[in-house]
């Protein structure tokens, strides 16, 4: 039996707001669908037409927004284990600086590999809420390598057009051509995959980027981005550790909160804490106009995934319903 467009729209209205992992969303919407199906059947047997029965059944069921919000709040609050796991990558970075291990390449590589491995594990195991903080860090080296590849490519192109400059190694160019599509695909599919589920996870994932940007800005202002950055970081290591510790607390609290408003507020608080910590570390660094601009940029950056989510989710409705509801209405199982 075909599902009526009104019922499809109603269930999609719930699914859109659930913001859980896709498997959980399907399971929940399928359960709600069976309830409405039973009620509509009963009303039809009482003499109502198919359309009237469905309309009445959905009205009795309640507003999609309210139902989805209540279900979201049941599932959105993670346990303490999930909170600790979400805080862990920030704590690892904090420890690298607190114990002055950040210039020891073995430790840095070990942390990096653990982040990549745990992100891959989380992606393959239902993308639990805690995995987003690991994914954020795992994407940073890929992102930086992509930027460097683009820079090298641009430079080679410039020399080629100018007809002068150092000769470019063909093998390096070939490696860049092989790497760029792969890295761009990985970055875009990871980011859109996360934001498609819930833009708040996109913001959680991006949480360390403003911290990294703040400290890079600090190094740049010092005029020592490449010259004496080691000494600067050595001096500021306790503050850097403190800033990542603040992120760890922010991420753990985010996982433990139920309501979206508070979750968003927590991310914002963590980012402003970073600004305050950087300002305390080097008071001359952040004059008040810079502080205001940095604050505005942080807010824009943190909530930009919300705009992307709307764009990404738009137009997905029919594909999702055909893949799920269509099969359930025929009594089939959802894999």
């Amino acid at each position, binding site marked *: 039996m075909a599902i009526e467009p009104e019922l499809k729209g109603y269930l999609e209205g719930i699914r859109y707001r659930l913001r859980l992992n896709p498997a959980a969303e399907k399971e*929940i919407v399928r*359960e*709600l669908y*069976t*309830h409405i*199906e*039973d*009620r509509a059947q009963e009303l039809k047997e009482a003499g109502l037409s198919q359309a009237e029965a469905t309309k009445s059944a959905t009205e*009795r*069921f*309640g*507003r999609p927004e*309210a*139902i989805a919000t*209540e*279900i979201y*709040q*049941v*599932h959105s609050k993670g346990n303490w284990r999930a909170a600790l796991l979400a805080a862990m990558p920030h704590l690892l970075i904090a420890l690298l600086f607190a114990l002055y291990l950040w210039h020891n390449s073995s430790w840095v590589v070990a942390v990096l590999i653990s982040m990549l491995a745990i992100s891959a594990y989380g992606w393959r195991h239902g993308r639990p809420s805690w995995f987003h903080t690991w994914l954020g860090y795992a994407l940073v080296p890929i992102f930086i390598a992509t930027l460097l590849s683009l820079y090298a490519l641009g430079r080679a192109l410039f020399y080629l057009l100018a007809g002068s400059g150092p000769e470019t190694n063909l093998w390096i160019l070939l490696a860049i051509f092989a790497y760029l599509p792969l890295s761009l695909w990985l970055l875009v599919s990871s980011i859109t995959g996360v934001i498609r589920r819930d833009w708040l996870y996109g913001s959680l994932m991006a949480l360390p980027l403003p911290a990294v940007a703040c400290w890079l800005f600090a190094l740049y202002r010092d005029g020592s981005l490449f010259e004496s950055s080691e000494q600067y970081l050595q001096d500021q290591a306790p503050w850097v550790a403190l800033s990542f510790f603040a992120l760890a607390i922010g991420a753990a609290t985010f996982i433990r909160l139920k309501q979206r408003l508070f979750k968003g507020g927590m991310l914002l608080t963590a980012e402003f804490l970073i600004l305050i910590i950087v300002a305390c570390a080097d008071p001359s660094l952040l004059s008040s106009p810079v502080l205001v601009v940095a604050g505005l940029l942080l807010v824009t950056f943190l909530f930009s995934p919300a705009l992307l989510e709307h764009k990404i989710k738009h137009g997905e409705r029919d594909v999702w319903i055909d893949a799920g509801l269509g099969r359930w209405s025929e*009594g089939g*199982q959802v894999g």
Partner: protein
Amino acid sequence: MRYDRELLKGSTDSLLLSLINRQPMYGYQIIKELERRSKGYFTFREGTLYPALHRLEKKGLVIGKWERLASGQERRYYNITEKGKHALKEKVTEWRGFSKAVNSIMLPESP
């Protein structure tokens, strides 16, 4: 008869556990059973049943499982767990004490 919905809200978990304790049930069946046993007194907004059921499941008091009906359709049945039985026992004791105390004040002439 009208009643304050907050009163029902506070007792939802106990009511659901009591019903599921008698036999495994799916959502629509629970709604019908609540209406039948309360003789139409309790009328849930049906969609709000599921957050309550999922909350119980998250606490480990019930467990949901898809089962096939004779008609070939599938429904998600909720079964009570040992932890749920224990919680229900406590809730029943709590309710007995609470209702007795409220009755003794609000209905002092009742036996």
